[in-house]
C-alpha cells in the first residue's frame, strides 16, 4: 500500500471537471513534482488530499485513511496563500503549531527563523509578503510529517531563498516521508525530484521517475514539459 493512493478521484465544479478520474500512487520516501500549467488541477488535487475540498467521486487515501484528523496529523501543507492571522506574532504561531501538532519541533523552527533573520516577536502584519512566506515554510518544515504538500513554494521568492527552500527540502528528506511539490518552475527543482507527474485538464498524462523521463526522452523534465504543454 503506497503512502498516498488516488483512485478515480474526481472533482466537479458545476459540471466542469477540475479533476477527472485521477489514478496515482505516491510511495514513501519520494520527492514528487506535480507539474502542469495553471488550471490543470494541481492545487485541487492537493486540497482534496489535505481535506479542504470534498471529492465528487473517487477516493484519496493517506496511509490507508480518508482525509480526517488522523491524516491531518501526518500531513504538512504549505499553500500558495498566507493562512496566518495578521495580529499574531511569529512566536505565537510557533506555539500554536506546537500546541496542535505533536510532531512539531520548536527548536528547529526557532533555529530556522534566526537563520533567515526573522524576529519572532514581530507581528505578521509588519512582515513583508516574502518574509511571511518564509515563516510559513519554516512552520511547515519544522514538522516531522509523513507527507509534505508544497504548493508553489518557490514561485514568489528570491533566488537565495529559493536555494534555502530546496536545501531545506533535501535536508529534511527521510525514507519514511514524501514531499509533493507543485510548481511550474521546473528547471529549478528538477534535480531534486525523484518522480514527475504531468497534469493536464485534471488528468494525469505522465507519471514516471525523473531519471526514466530523461533516459527515455533524452530530454530534461523541463524540456519535455515545454514540449508537451506547448501553447
Amino acid at each position: 500500500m503506497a503512502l498516498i493512493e488516488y483512485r478515480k478521484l474526481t472533482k466537479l465544479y458545476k459540471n466542469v471537471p477540475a479533476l477527472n478520474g485521477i489514478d496515482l500512487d505516491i510511495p514513501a520516501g519520494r520527492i514528487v513534482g506535480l507539474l502542469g500549467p495553471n488550471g490543470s488541477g494541481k492545487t485541487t488535487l492537493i486540497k482534496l488530499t489535505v481535506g479542504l475540498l470534498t471529492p465528487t467521486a473517487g477516493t484519496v487515501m493517506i496511509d490507508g485513511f480518508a482525509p480526517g484528523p488522523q491524516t491531518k496529523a501526518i500531513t504538512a501543507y504549505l499553500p500558495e496563500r498566507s493562512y496566518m492571522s495578521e495580529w499574531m506574532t511569529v512566536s505565537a504561531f510557533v506555539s500554536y503549531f506546537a500546541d496542535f501538532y505533536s510532531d512539531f519541533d520548536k527548536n528547529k523552527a526557532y533555529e530556522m527563523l534566526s537563520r533567515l533573520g526573522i524576529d519572532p516577536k514581530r507581528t505578521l502584519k509588519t512582515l513583508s509578503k516574502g518574509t511571511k512566506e518564509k515563516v510559513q515554510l519554516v512552520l511547515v518544515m519544522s514538522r516531522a510529517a509523513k507527507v509534505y504538500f508544497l504548493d508553489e513554494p518557490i514561485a514568489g521568492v528570491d533566488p537565495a531563498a529559493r536555494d534555502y527552500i530546496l536545501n531545506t527540502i533535501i535536508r529534511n528528506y527521510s525514507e519514511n516521508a514524501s514531499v509533493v511539490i507543485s510548481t511550474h518552475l521546473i528547471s529549478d527543482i528538477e534535480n531534486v525530484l525523484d518522480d514527475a507527474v504531468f497534469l493536464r485538464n485534471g488528468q494525469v498524462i505522465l507519471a514516471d521517475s525523473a531519471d526514466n523521463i530523461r533516459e527515455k526522452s533524452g530530454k530534461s523534465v523541463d524540456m519535455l514539459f515545454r514540449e508537451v504543454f506547448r501553447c
Partner: protein
Amino acid sequence: MYIPDSRPVYVQLIDRIYTMVLSGQYPPGAKLPTVRELAELMQANPNTVQKALYYLEEQKLIYTQRTVGKFITEDKDVIERARGSLARAYIIEFFQKMYMIGIDVPEAKKMISEKED
C-alpha cells in the same frame, strides 16, 4: 544561452564527482561527505546521489568502509585511467565543436600550437 543538461541526474552527479576527484578536491583516500551532505551540496535528490554513488562504487572510484563511510580509492591506476578517459572525451567534444563552426581537426590542432606560444 543556457542549454540544460538532459542526461539523467545521476549521470551528471557521477561526472561532477569525477571532476572533484580529478581536480584534487577529493584526493585519493579522502572521506566522502554523507549522502545527505552531498545532496545538499549538489542540490540534488538524496536518492539520486545514492544511485550515483552506487555506480561510482561499481566503477571502483569509491569504496565503502562499513560503519565508517565512503572513501575515494587510493588506487592511482583507477584515477589515472579516469583522468585519461575524461580527457579524451573532452578532446573529442572540442574537435566536434570546432567542426560545427567549420574548423576541421588539422586546423584546430594548428590553432592550439599557435595558442601555446
